[in-house]
């Protein structure tokens, strides 16, 4: 494992934090680290900024993300990576579609390539890293459009040449289902699955024999369409199949 030191931790909202760290890591937007701190597990985390110093932005879900959020400037922080492929370079008109912490991964891209950003969250308090002119959707309408980010985006889909997507599997599934097959844009989607190794050998992140960690995490929309398991079931830590209850993530 590599290690580096925390430069600063910034609180973005009630449970989202950005941690900037001191390391000469060379990564491209869309890549992730396997991150570890004492007291936690090792977890995958996208770089939300791939410039130098780089950063991650995360929501405190459980023990590990909480342990990370408690780090102070100067504390050590351990990682492997960067792993995974990266978002292809765009040309023409660009859109970003983020659901939940999916914005963390897209943020590294947004910093490099201007585009229209569509962000979805449950409610206003869940929003973070918002930039000027972002198109916001909330489930409860507490900010921006009332509804899903998919519904916010769809009417505008025809405008774009390159579209980058990162968010919960059910959101991505909805997007794919609602987009016509004749859409002109190139659409790239970063997927998320349970990851144990991050380097393509443990099989815990695989969808139809395709490893999210090594063959992805970023796929074009046709690749995702061909995954018959996508949006239907995921696997738990034992490898057991767990079907998605519609709408739940």
């Amino acid at each position, binding site marked *: 494992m590599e290690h580096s030191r925390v430069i600063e931790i910034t609180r973005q909202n009630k449970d989202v934090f950005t941690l900037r760290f001191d390391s000469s890591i060379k990564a491209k937007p869309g890549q992730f680290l396997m991150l570890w701190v004492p007291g936690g597990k*090792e977890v995958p985390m996208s770089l939300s900024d791939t410039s130098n110093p780089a950063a991650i932005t995360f929501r405190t879900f459980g023990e590990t993300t909480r342990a990370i959020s408690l780090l102070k400037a100067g504390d050590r922080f*351990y990682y492997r990576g960067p792993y995974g492929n990266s978002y292809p370079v765009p040309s023409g008109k660009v859109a970003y579609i983020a659901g939940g912490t999916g914005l963390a991964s897209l943020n590294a891209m947004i910093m490099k390539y201007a585009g229209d950003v569509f962000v979805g969250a449950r409610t206003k308090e869940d929003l973070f890293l918002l930039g000027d002119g972002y198109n916001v959707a909330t489930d409860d309408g507490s900010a921006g459009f009332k509804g899903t980010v998919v519904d916010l985006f769809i009417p505008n889909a025809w405008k774009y040449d390159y579209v980058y997507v990162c968010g919960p599997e059910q959101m991505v599934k909805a997007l794919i289902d609602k987009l016509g097959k004749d859409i002109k844009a190139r659409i790239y989607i970063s997927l998320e699955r349970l990851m*144990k190794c991050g*380097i*393509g050998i443990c*099989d815990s992140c*695989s969808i139809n024999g395709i490893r999210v960690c090594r063959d992805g995490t970023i796929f074009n929309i046709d690749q995702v369409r061909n995954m018959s398991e996508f949006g239907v079931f995921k696997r738990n830590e034992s490898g057991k199949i767990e079907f998605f209850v519609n709408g739940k993530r």
Partner: protein
Amino acid sequence: MASISTRIGTFSIENPVLLASGILDETSGSILRSLREGAGAAVTKSIGVTERKGYSTPVISEIKTGLLNAVGLSNPGIENFVEEYKNFPEKRKVVVSIFGGNVEEFSILARRVEQAGFDKVELNLSCPHVKGVGSEVGQDPELVEEIIAEIKGHTSLQVWAKLSPNVTDLVALAKAAQKADAYVLINTLRAIGVEIYSRKFSLSNVVGGYSGPGIKPVALRAVYDVYKETQKDIVGVGGITTWEDAVEFFLLGARAIEVGTAFIYEDYPIYSKINKGLSDYLDSEGFSRLDDIVGVMVKDGAFKGH
């Protein structure tokens, strides 16, 4: 072009490069992918009677000479496994790896595997880092003998016994397992990794299994020792990363090989690379089939002259 087809027990295989248990074989989709990308056959992740989540991450740690892992035998349990493979198209090319803590568990698992339409099991008698199963069972010659007798007595499965290298006398263990149709040699070496800045262990379970290039010399020795004494069918595994590595195992008596950690370095092209290298080697060295080199270095007197 030289033939690289082979045979283990009664199982005829198009080519001798198999997927090892525990690497890219938790999902049926990946097993199928390996078969499509050129594996002669694939061994599943080891399956137990009930679901196990395995250890917390970190469960792997890459080191200069290979890999440390303590995944902890995570698996969905035999019933979920059988369910997932209900309509699997290539059951004859799948070897189901099973682990248990006693004769009865192995017996339950084997029967269920057979009912589900598979005809081959690999017995994990060698996982070095989970209490009460794996090598803790597999280091006891009497238990090994009983387990194999039970399965051979009550099923018509082909039985491959995967043995532990972490023992004083591997040959004695192999002899206890002689009712098996083949030996699989070797599982990982018991090992530890240390992180000097956090001063913590590299794996959440502390002790793990060591695989990859660094264990090849030990695996070769295991194959040599066991082949010399038993002349039985052997599947060689441990650190095979190139076709040259594979040839070394064949020369010492292996009839097939498994690859695991090599995926880190070579990924799926590993199958075609080894198969091609092997076939080119046989051609250029003047052999017409793989069988011609199996064990030639061990057959009596072949190594005289050093």
